[in-house]
């Protein structure tokens, strides 16, 4: 069984770096819709993938991954919104872990919106 002692040791290790990032308002927010519609269409693995990649790629000092309820576009779930300070919100639709990885690579790291996955590029009639 894993012990709480182990957790204590981790706290000692990370405490300082946490205080550095806690008050940062220049974060890019990545928000995943996690209501019934999102969950049923696969939002949980998308959230996990985004969160893991942001950690792996060492982006946690400028990107925060969070979740929200129903965004109101259930037919386009799983939806991921990217909100960069001072820029218009980008809404990615019908996401999966592979597309999420591309968004991390091309948008969050590279700075270029992955146009083909956005709501704007969807054929809405």
């Amino acid at each position, binding site marked *: 069984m894993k012990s709480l002692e182990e*957790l204590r040791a981790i706290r000692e290790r*990370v405490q300082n770096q946490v205080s550095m990032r806690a008050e940062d308002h220049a974060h890019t927010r990545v928000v995943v819709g*996690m209501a019934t519609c999102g*969950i049923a269409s696969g939002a949980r693995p998308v959230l996990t993938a985004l969160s893991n990649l942001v950690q792996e790629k060492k982006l946690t000092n400028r990107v925060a991954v969070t979740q929200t309820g129903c965004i109101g576009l259930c037919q386009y779930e799983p939806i991921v919104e990217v909100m960069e300070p001072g820029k218009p919100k980008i809404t990615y639709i019908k996401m999966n872990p592979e597309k999420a990885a591309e968004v991390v690579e091309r948008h969050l790291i590279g700075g270029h919106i992955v146009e083909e996955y956005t709501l704007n590029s969807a054929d809405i009639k």
Partner: protein
Amino acid sequence: MMPEISLNVLDVAENSTRAGASLVQITVKADTVQDRLSVIIADDGCGMTPEQVAQVTDPFFTSRTTRKVGLGVPFFKYAAESTGGSFTIESEVGVGTTVTAIFTMSHIDRMPLGDITSTIHTLAVYHPETDFLYRYCYNDRSFELDTRQFREVLGGVPFDTPEISEYIKDYLTENKLETDGGAVY
């Protein structure tokens, strides 16, 4: 339709957090001898009136009026009852809500439990305002995760700190394996 029981748990527990719960207790209990899989989600959120409770299992009525519940509860109810199990909601305004779903484990229509570890991890890490007490039982073995204990140890260090998030994942994964010996159901 949700393909896994664990996704229904996530969905119902999300409702609990939106109902303003400060503590959500989630119990998953597999009993292979009695052939029962019980899932209980109990919160101390705002609760519902008897009228609302009567309506939440009706998808067509509730999806138009009580938006916080919608289709999720009818899915869960159907999933449990179609295995010869049962589904109940007890709720009181100002006290909280308890959802209990009982499945017949061996029933051909029972959906798999699925990735319950990811569900609990997602809930714990992304709800800094809510505490979770998760109990996982497999026959006579069990383990618990209590985010209140974690918070006490961590002081102000948030759960979504990479190392902490990883620890929570490992805690759930390793303890589940020790509890059920890697049983897949």
